[in-house]
């Protein structure tokens, strides 16, 4: 029986599991984007999902914070089926950074306030620092930031809600090499602080730099890449 495994969110070997996919199928425009995907994503470290574009990586990620729902199968988060979790609560526990930066109109502080209206300067400063941004940027108009700063502001905006998991959807694909490396090391630090990270990318070199484990998504099927292909 598979069910008892889910109860405490523990895998058979007692390592905490963040997400579990049980025969998850997503059909879009007649195509099986995900085809009975079954997998466990551990809570610790950075889990990378790689694969060619159009393989369904983004869809897989969006299932995790319920921006999309599967046509069949179940997604579990820390032992609870997503269907029984309040999506608004889930999305504050599971934050997301999108492929393209999505600044809201207004200042950096205003952007963080959208995420957490009650946050004071101290909490905002902490969030910016964790995202490797200068707290002096708080008063600056968000749209004047550079691409790398903007994407880290989106990360800070998510961090200010205090998430336990981060979903990163090719967050560095629009960035140059240097800001890309800054974002990667920032994510590493967050993982070290105990935040679960699921990172979607199609950049092979990036996979080798950041992955604690690497899932490959191809033709709707998710497979764990051999140990030698991921960071030990």
């Amino acid at each position, binding site marked *: 029986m598979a069910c008892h495994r889910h109860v405490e969110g523990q895998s058979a070997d007692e390592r905490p599991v963040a997400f579990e996919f049980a025969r998850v199928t997503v059909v879009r425009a007649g195509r099986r984007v995900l085809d009975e995907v079954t997998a466990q994503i551990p809570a610790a470290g950075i889990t990378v999902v790689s694969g060619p574009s159009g393989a369904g990586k983004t869809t897989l990620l969006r299932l995790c*914070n*319920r*921006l*999309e*729902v599967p046509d069949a199968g179940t997604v579990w988060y820390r032992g609870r089926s997503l269907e029984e979790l309040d*999506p*608004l*609560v889930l*999305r*504050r526990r599971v*934050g*997301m950074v*999108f492929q*393209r930066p*999505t600044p*809201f*109109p207004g200042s950096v502080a205003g952007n963080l306030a*959208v*995420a957490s209206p009650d946050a004071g300067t101290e909490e905002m400063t902490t969030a910016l620092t964790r995202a490797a941004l200068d707290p002096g940027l708080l008063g600056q108009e968000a749209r004047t930031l550079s691409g790398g700063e903007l994407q880290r502001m*989106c990360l800070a*905006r*998510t961090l200010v*809600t205090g998430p336990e998991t981060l979903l990163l959807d090719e967050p560095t694909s629009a960035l140059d090499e240097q800001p890309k490396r800054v974002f990667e090391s920032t994510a590493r630090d967050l993982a070290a602080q105990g935040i679960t990270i699921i990172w979607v990318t199609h950049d092979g070199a990036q996979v080798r730099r950041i992955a604690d484990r690497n899932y490959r998504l191809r033709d709707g099927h998710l497979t764990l890449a051999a140990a030698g292909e991921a960071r030990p």
Partner: protein
Amino acid sequence: MNTTVSWLGLAISLLLVAVAAGISWWQRLGLQRQILIAAARALVQLLLVGAALTLVISPDRSIWWSWLWVAGMLGYAATVARRRAPGVPHLLTLALASFTAAAVVTLGVLFGLHVFPLTGRTLVPIAGMMIGNSMTATVLAGRRLTDELRDKRDEVEARLALGQPSRQAATPYVRGALRAALTPQIETTRATGLVFLPGAMTGLILAGAAPLQAVLVQAVVMFLVLAATATTTVVIALGLIRRLFTPDHRLVYLPTPADH
């Protein structure tokens, strides 16, 4: 004193149509046919409506015939709104709901509080003004909101991903759509009397009413239109939000319209 237009007068006024057609011919615009057909069509439609209205609003007929007429206008306006904004989902039912809400508010104030006596003669034209303007506002607000949510999907989903409920995530775009739909009406209201003399007032003065009386009626009509536009757009916007988001706070897929 009463000014009336005779049938001969109407025939003579066709000279004005001939002027428009003549200019088209002279400047080789190729619009003569369209001008003539449009004028003929308008004349036939107006005569038919005039005949129907004569039946409906005659004093010895039950007011229910007028209400039936209003219901007919309402239904027709809803189908026109849907046709003019095909990219907006569920617009037919939403338009019906919003027109009904606007009717309750405006007719309730005007007739309930006895600004006008409730007769077919007042009900039908007042409801016509209300529905006509509501229809334009519905199309504007519905289109704008749907376009915004489709074009700024990334931004909307970023708000949802931060745990905002769909109603809250949509608020900036709802405001934008409401402003876009209401602003032209506010501009018109502000310029009334200075820049142009509105139709109702012009008609009344031509028909021989005292200018002050015409002005009072026109003012009431302007306020009616303002309230109708505001009521319609807010019902459309909030109703659309309920349909463009799922109960579990996801934004539904919005196809890009092919040619609108």
